[in-house]
């Protein structure tokens, strides 16, 4: 399915705005100026050859809801932490589990998994059979050890 910029209505009746990656920041900025001050959710969807990034925005004043969608082929997307602080942990989570690199994020580390975890679990090509053990070092930080064997 080819990605076309434009607007459509989703199955749940929400307005979906599809933009190119280059126009993402400007679109979100103009939306924020329109009063969409609540960034509800950032989602990455692994479509195998590209990754879809979905932003759910809500406006408290006008009670409107809008979904902004973009795609990335090199799993890099500009960060929106300067627009909404709520994006901070969302982007870290998506980086952790989906492997999307948010350019310009001030502190892009893994949120849930240990920092040296191998792979991004929500990717479709992630091998779930590989086992990684989590341990704790002297300072209380977690680290993962990779089991190169066949796993389970």
């Amino acid at each position, binding site marked *: 399915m080819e990605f076309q910029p434009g607007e459509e209505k*989703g*199955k*749940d009746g*929400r307005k979906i705005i599809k933009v190119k990656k280059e126009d993402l920041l400007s679109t979100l900025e103009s939306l924020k100026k329109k009063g969409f*001050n*609540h*960034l*509800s*959710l950032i*989602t990455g*969807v*692994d479509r195998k050859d590209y990754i879809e990034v*979905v932003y*759910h925005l809500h406006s*408290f004043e006008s*009670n409107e*809801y809008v*979904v902004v969608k973009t795609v990335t082929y090199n799993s890099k997307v500009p960060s929106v932490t300067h627009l*909404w*602080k*709520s994006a*901070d*942990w*969302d982007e870290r*989570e998506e980086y952790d*589990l989906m492997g999307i690199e948010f350019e310009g994020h001030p502190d892009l580390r893994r*949120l*849930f*998994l240990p920092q040296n975890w191998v792979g991004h*679990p*929500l990717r479709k090509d*992630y091998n*779930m059979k590989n086992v990684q053990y989590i341990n704790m070092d002297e300072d*209380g930080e*977690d680290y993962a050890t990779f089991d190169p064997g066949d796993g389970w």
Partner: protein
Amino acid sequence: MSEWVELNMGPQHPSTHGVLRLKIKVEGEIVREVEPVIGYLHRNAEKLCENTFFCDNLLYFDRMDYVGAPGMEVGYLEAAEKLLGVPPPERAIWIRTIMAELSRIASHLVWLGAYGLDLGMLTPFFYAFDLREKIMTIFVEASGSRLLTNYCSIGGVYQDFNEKIVQEIEDFINIAPSKIEELNSLFVKNDIFISRTKGIGYMSKEVAIDYGVTGPMLRASGVEYDVRKAEPYLAYSKVNFEIPVSSKGDNLARFLVRIEEMRQSVKIISQAIKKLPDGPFFNPKAKKSMMIRMRGEGEVYARTEASKGEFGVYIVGDGGVKPYRVRVRSPSLKNLSVLREIGKNVMIADLVAISGTTDLVFGEIDR
């Protein structure tokens, strides 16, 4: 220059509900920096959901907010049923409304008891759990399970409300308001409690919105936003209730908003139990033999007002019997992230009091 001492609170610590770890830097008694470290309960439910049938995924949602499981089930089913095209019948909608509100009260009661413990009050914990036990008996009667009910299912609910359940709910409605008042007075009539909460942990409206805080925390900061009103789901458009809002934004405001929410929930339940219509409790399109053959395509986002805040479920289907991608917006995660902002430059004792009002449940944060 004074030296900052690094202190680890958690993951095994009496005040961090669950496995929260707070890396704090203290200067004497004053906390200068807080960094929550999470992930100790991470199971990656989103990945697990991708490998399970639509109907079975409900189990993972039970285990998110395990103190108020039916509320999570409702959130998932709002999205899944739209995707699969099997709307529940009218009676199931009302039953779910009742269960969701009961779970909201159950969750708030756990929070209330635990908040007392955070501040060093032992007694209210038992009073809160005494009332919660009444809800647990209703859950057991309805679903056979106390905690992880797995009561709702795609296309309806697992079994109909019988007379005994209705009777128990009516009993609960009768005793709940006075018990809630009793609990409330255990706290707010205590001067030390007021001094520990009033003006402590102030969160401005702007900060709350910026960090994506929702639920009682947001409403205590003066934003009148409740998904039950903003985008009514289930039967919420047909019942009368009010959204408690406070403009104070401190610990006490968050406390009072939650207490008022419990009162409103009792009000909703008492209306819903009167309006409970007759009819089927299950959509025949979703009968058991069809369950694992249901296919969904497209993408659906549904948001519900869980006890902690706006709970969103985003499901992408590719026409298979399993979802292609499931994404959960967990309210506690966002509510916790604001602790970096409001937990700064307070005393250690206040940090505990503030993190208590964020109402954290780690099944939901770590997923």
